[in-house]
């Protein structure tokens, strides 16, 4: 591990450097001045971002440059069978722990050229905008929501075109496709049994349509705000991140939420919380018996935490529901039962190399 890799020993707060020791080029400085952004705050922001992405601080100038170039990278954001939770989450991004105030991504960092929930244009004017921005190559196509497999099913039509047609056209000249949220990444809720609309993930649909493009899955229901924007900015400044077998960036999805959870010790040593609001719940003991899926869920919730480091599900007392994993709505747990309050089968933890003497002690029926 290189010496300038930021420490992850403190889980509670993102370490945000002042950025004072970082130099950057004249053009970037000039842009910041034009944008009316304080250099100090901006560098602090970039340092926070680098820390989040587990990048050496030496990339800060490059991030700064990417974020202030005279032509901002074009991002086209399209929504299909979704709930708008992913967009809401993304809107909550960009205010790191140190009080940095890059107040809006959309004016300074990227050019968000199509996003139906926020854009001024509507109807024909919106469609014209979509055609115009996707006529030029090189944009990042962000997609949320699953897409019904059949174009003629009528289950998704927008601007008089099917989901399949809208996606295929928009993907043509994209440099990168980012599937944001578990619906786009893995099919998510619409695909939950019995998948009434034959909903597909973006990856599956791309395979069906023989679309060969770089794809990153940013799963989660929704994903953590800074993870969405972090992945986009990582790509713009450093290129493709390292991905796991489910095409998720390992920097955010490499560990389970259990591995960084402050309640982990009691998973191994006991005692466990047995009910919401019992004495062990108040003490912050492990929520395994209340169904926590943390040991089998890959995400950064317990490390990055939600909404600027405020909390994460287990810290607020509810187990992880496993929302960044494929088909988490239909996950089978102990006794092959589905349910967010059913403990995971003990083998699930074993397969990840986790000890689980506590659950064995409590439950004689698990005998592996």
């Amino acid at each position: 591990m290189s010496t300038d890799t930021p420490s992850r020993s403190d889980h509670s707060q993102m370490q945000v450097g002042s950025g004072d020791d970082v130099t950057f080029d004249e053009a970037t400085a000039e842009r910041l001045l034009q944008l009316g952004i304080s250099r100090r705050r901006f560098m602090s922001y970039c340092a926070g971002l680098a820390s989040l992405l587990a990048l050496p601080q030496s990339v800060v100038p490059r991030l700064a440059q990417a974020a202030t170039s005279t032509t901002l990278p074009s991002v086209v954001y399209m929504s299909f069978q979704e709930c708008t939770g992913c967009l809401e989450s993304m809107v909550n991004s960009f205010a790191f722990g140190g009080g940095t105030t890059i107040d809006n991504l959309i004016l300074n960092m990227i050019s968000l050229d199509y996003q139906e929930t926020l854009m001024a244009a509507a109807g024909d004017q919106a469609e014209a905008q979509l055609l115009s921005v996707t006529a030029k190559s090189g944009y990042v196509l962000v997609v949320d929501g699953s897409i019904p497999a059949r174009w003629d099913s009528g289950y998704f039509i927008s601007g008089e075109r099917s989901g399949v047609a809208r996606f295929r056209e928009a993907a043509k000249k994209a440099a990168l496709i980012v599937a944001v949220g578990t619906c786009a990444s893995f099919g998510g809720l619409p695909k939950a049994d019995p998948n009434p609309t034959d909903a597909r993930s973006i990856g599956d649909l791309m395979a069906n349509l023989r679309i060969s493009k770089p794809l990153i899955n940013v799963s989660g229901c929704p994903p953590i705000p800074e993870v969405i924007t972090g992945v986009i900015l990582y790509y713009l400044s450093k290129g493709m991140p390292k991905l796991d077998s489910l095409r998720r960036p390992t920097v955010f999805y490499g560990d389970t939420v259990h591995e960084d959870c402050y309640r982990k010790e009691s998973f191994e040593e006991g005692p466990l919380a047995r009910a919401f609001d019992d004495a062990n719940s108040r003490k912050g003991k492990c929520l395994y018996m209340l169904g926590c899926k943390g040991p089998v869920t890959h995400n950064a919730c317990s490390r990055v935490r939600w909404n600027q480091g405020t909390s994460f599900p287990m810290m607020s007392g509810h187990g992880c529901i496993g929302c960044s994993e494929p088909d988490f709505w239909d996950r089978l747990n102990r006794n092959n039962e589905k349910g967010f309050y059913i403990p995971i089968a003990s083998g699930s933890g074993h397969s990840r190399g986790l000890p689980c003497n506590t659950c064995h002690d409590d439950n004689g029926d698990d005998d592996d």
Partner: protein
Amino acid sequence: MAATPNVIIDPVTRIEGHLRIQAHAVPDGKGGGTITDPGLSASTMVRGLEKILQGRDPRDAWAFTQRICGVCTVVHGLTSVRAVEHAIGIKVSKNADYIRNMMIGAQYVHDHVMHFYHLHALDWVDVVSAMKANPTSTAALARINNGTYKPNNGALPNAAYFQTVLSKLNNLVSRGQLGLFANGYWGHSAYKLSPEENLLLVSHYLEALAWAREVVKLHTVFGGKDPHPNLVVGGMPCTLSSNTGTVNDDKGGTSLNTAGLATIKTAVARMKAFVDQVYLPDVILVAKRYKEWADFGATAGNFLCYGEFPDPALVKREFTDGAIDYPAGYIFPRGVIWAHAPTTLAPFDEKKVTENVAHAWYLGSDTGEHPSVGETELYYDGPLPDQGRNPDGTSKYMLDENARYSWIKSPRYDGQPMEVGPLAHILTMHARGGTANAQPTDKLVRGYVQKFWINPTAQGGLGLTFTQLNSTLGRIFCRVLETKIIADQIAGRAAGTAAYAGWYQLYYDNRAGAYWNPNTFTRLQQPTLWPVQVGFGFTEAPRGALGHWVKLNRVSGLIDNYQCVVASQWNAGPRDLDGAPGPYEEALRGHVLANLKQPLEVLRTIHSFDPCIGCAVHIVDPDGEPLVQVDVNHGVGSTTRVSGMSCA
């Protein structure tokens, strides 16, 4: 057959979900025209969530229904939790209700502010005009309009502050990347604000983004994340931390430690401040410039409210397990307002709610049945997509008001289309305020309506009539008014006849009390103790009346049937069998458009409802019939078999 639509908006943007609007305007010969008949409102996306819920653990239902909408992220989850609690006869603790009230309340404040600035403002605010503003004059305007709002490092915004906002806008233009502002109807003759007023509102658009990130932290402390915070049947999953200090591996604890409680308190204060200092005065400013919009956008005049914000001050019984029971005491009263008596609160009877699929892409009852009975089947027989345009540029994809044309069913109350949402909330409070049962908040509402809406302009009011509340402008006004009521209800009111400690303080004083009813999970396994056959859960969501009906299997304990009838379904639904249009459709009648190719006026009225279309679309498969038996009729129709429901 009505005349061919010549006003089409598809996609309608700055909403949640996927919506198409069609209307016919009688041309005026100068490019504009007048819409003389109701329009057509069509949802064009379906997911089938209710079908997915069958056979599930009822404890899980909240997480599924929460994903109906990530904007209304708390209310669907809580409605489901309440429906299951009703089905199994579990009451929750006082703390759980305080926290739920705060979470729903925070959702209102967050949603309504973001609706006004990020979804609706650009219908009234011309961003290109803002670029001509004089920063010094804008600073002067800010001192008058928002004299206590100090976003400029704790000071009032000065000329330099607005120059920075201008620079950001100029930057977009100079590099030719307008981003989200590209291709708006800029320069349209219906925009009326001065450049300085436009710039002031653009600056608040930007500041509201930063503000929103802060206030959602209330959800994060209680629910672990936002959007989609965690909830639980039987109370709240969060609990007071044993460790008041930093939560860590050694000391453990929960988010409800000293820091978490302070975060909530700060979020509550920020909500109230932004509503008082920015949102309310900005709405009044816009209303003064656009007063004629009190004459457009009326619906039929029938309003429905299920009731919301149970008042913990009205506790009737406290149970040994910490649970409590209320009399029917809500800040927003349960009731109905009929067009012929707009100041009278009529009683609400849940049994009079029906759903009708005459013009929706389902097979089932055209005449309307209660949500707990009936039969529906996905059946798309609309036009094919992806067919391009005719040579003259007109659309090949046209929906027909005489056929099926939407994935939204038409809910009716006592056979009538009802408007739900802020206007319904304010009118029901106003009506109760005139009775012996008037609550302090009702009296506040009556006072605000008088002061801001009815008082003559010489006294600082808008000089409009009570009847004109049923309008595009009235909807916007009622939305800010209820936001003010709720923000104060959370934060408390210091003095006067309506003095109130506020939910935050009441919770804080009681924070060591119970959060979860420990009988909940065992009660789920004791069907003999379940008091009803079908659980009815409801909330008043930011967009209006939201109801879930759940039937549990008394052998397996799993969900047999699940049905949602939601706010935007009431407002955005299609015509019924009698041809009576839904509220969006009715509201478009009478609109005068300056330019049929830039239907800004139509957008203003549709946006005034705050469409949330993801919420509005559902199907039911009570018997758990096999999925998607595709019946391809000449390549157009496909059918998902869904059959009979037999509820109690």
